[in-house]
């Protein structure tokens, strides 16, 4: 046996392993759900290159971190399951089945409730936020789409896409509290930091409807772009991003004045968004062109478009701006 050669191989192997380890601990991954082909794309956030694409289940639309940030939950609507990923590497850690048609998901602020919205089947499910056991399944016609919560976690606001309504469900009694008519095809729901207003993205219109949810009155319609859809806070407790899927723009809304303060062009049907912690880079899924679009938030110009799978929807990376 040539021990010198063996020794060299072992040293080289250890060096390579160390190198790989140090690379993996530094390279941050961006997780993108390709809802139309049931895969997850992993993108190296630094090099902006897709490094891996793997099957995750049927129709993964939305994703979110667990309250302790230890896992990233992917909701596979047609597979009726949640898949837990490592938020840093994208590795599949476990699957929770018997979650009925989870299209959109959300934890209440007190982490007590996990609400899953079934768009196709007109249902919402309220689960125990700790162990995902079903507490109650409720009818929610027609086409419940997105979910938001009030500050004390007593209400879940659900947009009803096909009946053009906003519904509030009482989480403590697990029952419908009220419904009110809104504009065409309501989608994203966002509660202002003072917990006063619910902002609703009107995908069938060109505005965000501002609702005083305590009185169920519309106080304002903020004109954005056609197909106002989803929200993302910019982390400073005031500015809020809204994607407009038809006009191919993203607006910045000032929540203190409830007015649009900037507009950014993002082609290809901008949908879900993620913003870097320093607020300098916005990553957006461009639904209709199989790409993720990266925008420089200083120049408001596109930095790069990365090809991913069919119908990219949810997007996440760990070093994101605060959700406030």
């Amino acid at each position: 046996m040539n021990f010198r050669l063996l020794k060299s191989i072992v040293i080289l192997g250890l060096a390579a392993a160390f190198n790989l380890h140090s690379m993996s601990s530094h390279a941050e991954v961006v997780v993108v759900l390709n809802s139309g082909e049931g895969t997850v794309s992993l993108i190296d956030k630094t090099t902006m290159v897709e490094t891996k694409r793997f099957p995750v289940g049927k129709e993964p639309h939305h994703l979110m971190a667990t309250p302790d940030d230890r896992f990233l939950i992917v909701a596979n609507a047609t597979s009726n399951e949640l898949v837990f990923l490592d938020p840093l590497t994208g590795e599949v850690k476990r699957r929770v089945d018997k979650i009925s048609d989870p299209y959109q998901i959300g934890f209440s602020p007190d982490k007590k409730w996990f609400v899953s919205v079934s768009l196709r089947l007109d249902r919402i499910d309220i689960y125990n936020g700790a162990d995902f056991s079903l507490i109650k399944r409720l009818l929610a016609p027609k086409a419940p789409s997105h979910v938001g919560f009030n500050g004390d976690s007593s209400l879940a606001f659900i947009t009803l896409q096909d009946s053009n309504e906003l519904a509030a469900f009482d989480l403590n009694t697990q029952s419908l509290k009220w419904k009110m008519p809104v504009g065409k095809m309501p989608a994203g729901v966002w509660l202002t930091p003072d917990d006063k207003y619910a902002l609703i993205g009107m995908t069938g219109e060109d505005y965000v409807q501002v609702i005083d949810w305590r009185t169920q009155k519309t106080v304002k319609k903020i004109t954005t772009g056609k197909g106002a859809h989803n929200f993302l806070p910019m982390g400073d407790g005031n500015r809020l991003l809204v994607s407009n899927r038809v006009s191919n723009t993203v607006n910045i809304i000032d929540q203190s004045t409830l007015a649009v303060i900037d507009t950014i062009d993002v082609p290809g049907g901008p949908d879900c968004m993620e913003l870097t912690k320093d607020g300098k880079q916005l990553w957006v899924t461009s639904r209709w062109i199989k790409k993720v679009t990266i925008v420089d938030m200083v120049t408001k110009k596109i930095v790069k478009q990365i090809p991913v799978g069919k119908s990219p929807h949810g997007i996440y990376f760990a070093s994101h701006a605060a959700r406030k």
Partner: protein
Amino acid sequence: MFDALTSFVTEQFAALHGHVFETGVLPVLHELGLGGYAEQAFDGTEFFLIGAIEVTMLAVVFGLLEKWYPAEVQSDDGAKRVDVIYTMLHRLGFIPLLMFLLLAPVVDKLDGALRMHDIIPWKLEDALPFLNDSPWLSFFFYLVILDFVAYWLHRAQHQINLWWALHSLHHSQRQMSFWSDDRNHLLDDFVMDGAFALVALLIGVAPAQFVTIVIATRVIESLSHANLKVSFGRIGEYLLVSPRFHRFHHGIGVGHEGVTRGVNFAVLFPIWDVLFRTANFENNYPPTGIRDQLDGKEYGRGFWAQQWLGLQRLVHVFLP
């Protein structure tokens, strides 16, 4: 090299798909207040574009092959013209859209009612978890199951008089060509699609997966109907339905009109005919049609005549 080519084609198609959808479809949907169907319309646009490309390629490739290696000399182009209409209506997505609009609400209602009784339909991956990690294997399993179902549904189309009253329209083409695959009565389509939708619900086939299976298999089905003197050889004939295998099924007096009402029912995999003793591997390319056509029975020449006569046959089964 191959990866680069695949990636290039995929990206070009994605760009075309996105462009057509964003400039032609989405604005119209938005104006009509139908923005809620954007995702379905996005898939529908893809179905239409793939169909248009596919039909063009079929017309060129299979058209040339039929000229070079015909199973029979065909002179009546008029008889084929109606099959072209059926092909366009199906492959460009008009009839699938109609079927989707009719069936999806029913299936969703049924599925939704089950959920309220805490029943979540089973899926194949529950029994075979490794399918979660391999889309190709998963695709193959679902393909085999759906083809098995298609075999028995096809036998039922021939053995149940009510259903044969409709399905006979498909067999009435005496100038069978690659255009003939979609020549079906609309009610026949509805029953078949309804049966497949139920099976898809029972085994957990995702709608997107189902569409992929349909698109992937229909080229083979066009080939099996082509006017080609082609068999796949001693082993190949057992693996995939060939033009010879399926032409025999359409053969007057021999294929679908035997004592047990026929042979060679398989749609993709002849193994089902072998297993259930309905296979015939005779190297023969008979003329196609239905025996009573020789006695002058009329099945119609144009689309609406064929649909109307199909309904009349259906009524005659009830009221002989």
